[in-house]
């Protein structure tokens, strides 16, 4: 036996090893994410450290930079979606979420009007074993107040001036309009209607349509 083994070349030994591993692999059942164990401690840590949040201004940056390495999901109903949605979002009701077949290897950003629905959807997807799930911090309300109609600092310092200009540029890009700080103190912030759904140029078409090539793979 030993003599027979030593008469094989290295290549033949490796080939035999591959063959044996291949035979055993016939019985392999790679888990496709079917079995999921929820680790409450881990979930609590994620909630506590808020790493599962995406700031509206960060999302605005992503959209303006044309990033395509995430999937934006709008959890509101058809009517609300038709009136306004963040550029690039795809609509999915929370009831459809578990069976929507969202790719598990993508970064998924959820949003609803406020934060509750997206938080619930976040947990639902976590329970399905999704790892890259994020919530838009403050939901569409925050998107409206911080991105579309940001309040600019009055009598700005040079730093604030810089920030004001950036906020204005972002707001204009998404069809919004910045508000100046002081006028709003007595009256509740006046917000014009949400911008029309004509996508600013250079913004990705709503997802679900052709997605841009991801910067992954080779």
């Amino acid at each position, binding site marked *: 036996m030993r003599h027979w083994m030593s008469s094989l070349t290295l290549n033949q030994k490796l080939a035999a090893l591959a063959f044996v591993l*291949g035979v055993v*692999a*016939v019985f392999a059942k790679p888990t*496709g994410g079917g*079995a999921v164990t929820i680790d409450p401690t881990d979930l609590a840590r994620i909630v506590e450290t808020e790493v599962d949040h995406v700031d509206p201004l960060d999302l605005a940056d992503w959209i303006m930079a044309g990033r395509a390495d995430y999937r934006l999901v709008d959890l509101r109903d058809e009517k609300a979606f038709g009136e306004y949605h963040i550029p690039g979002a795809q609509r999915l009701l929370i009831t459809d979420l578990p069976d929507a077949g969202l790719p598990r*290897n993508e970064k998924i950003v959820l949003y609803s009007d406020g934060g509750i629905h997206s938080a619930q959807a976040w947990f639902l997807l976590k329970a399905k074993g999704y790892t*890259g799930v994020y919530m838009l911090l403050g939901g569409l309300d925050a998107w409206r107040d911080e991105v579309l109609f940001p309040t600019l600092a009055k009598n700005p310092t040079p730093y604030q001036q810089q920030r004001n200009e950036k906020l204005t540029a972002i707001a204009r890009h998404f069809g919004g309009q910045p508000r100046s700080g002081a006028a709003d103190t007595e009256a509740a912030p006046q917000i014009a209607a949400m911008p029309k759904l004509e996508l600013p140029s250079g913004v990705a078409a709503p997802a679900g349509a*052709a997605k841009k090539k991801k910067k992954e793979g080779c």
Partner: protein
Amino acid sequence: MNTPFYKYGAFGDETSLVVAFVIGIGFGFFLERAGFGSARKLVSQFYLNDLAVFKVMFTAIVTAMLGTTYLAWMGVLDLSLVYLTPTVLWPQLVGGLVLGIGFVIGGYCPGTSVASVATGRLDGLAFVLGLPVGTLLFAEAFPWIRGFYENGSVGVQTLPGVFDLPYGLVVFAVVLMALGGFAGASWIEKKFQPR
């Protein structure tokens, strides 16, 4: 331990670049060790007298396949989190042909051209300089070829899915294909040895 490490947040975007760099250096090292830093070695593939490219690449495929299969079986690797390139039939066929023709004419593919530059080869340098030029031309021409670029998009396809076979059986079949391929390649090499 859960993998893929990146998807489980073991490291962030910046660190992933360092990891990619280290893996890239390793990739280049083994390309060079296999002799793929030389256009002569690579091109002899097409004259059928040295099928090292086929053997090395198929060995890499089988090794990676067996590794991921067993890691997933042990529950260490979540295969559904591994990125798979979506299939876009026609552009990928044409792209493969263009790459193949360039390979025969010039003697390098993108990875091996970089490896050859690392060992100081000037023909490889011409290739590497061609990469950004080609990328730029493609980007500029993209509005015109966009329709074709997205033509025949069928999403992510896997062999077990297409043939409706158990995952493990496909793994075994690919191993058999590789072993048969290696034996066949050695036979072909002998037959086409330059006299």
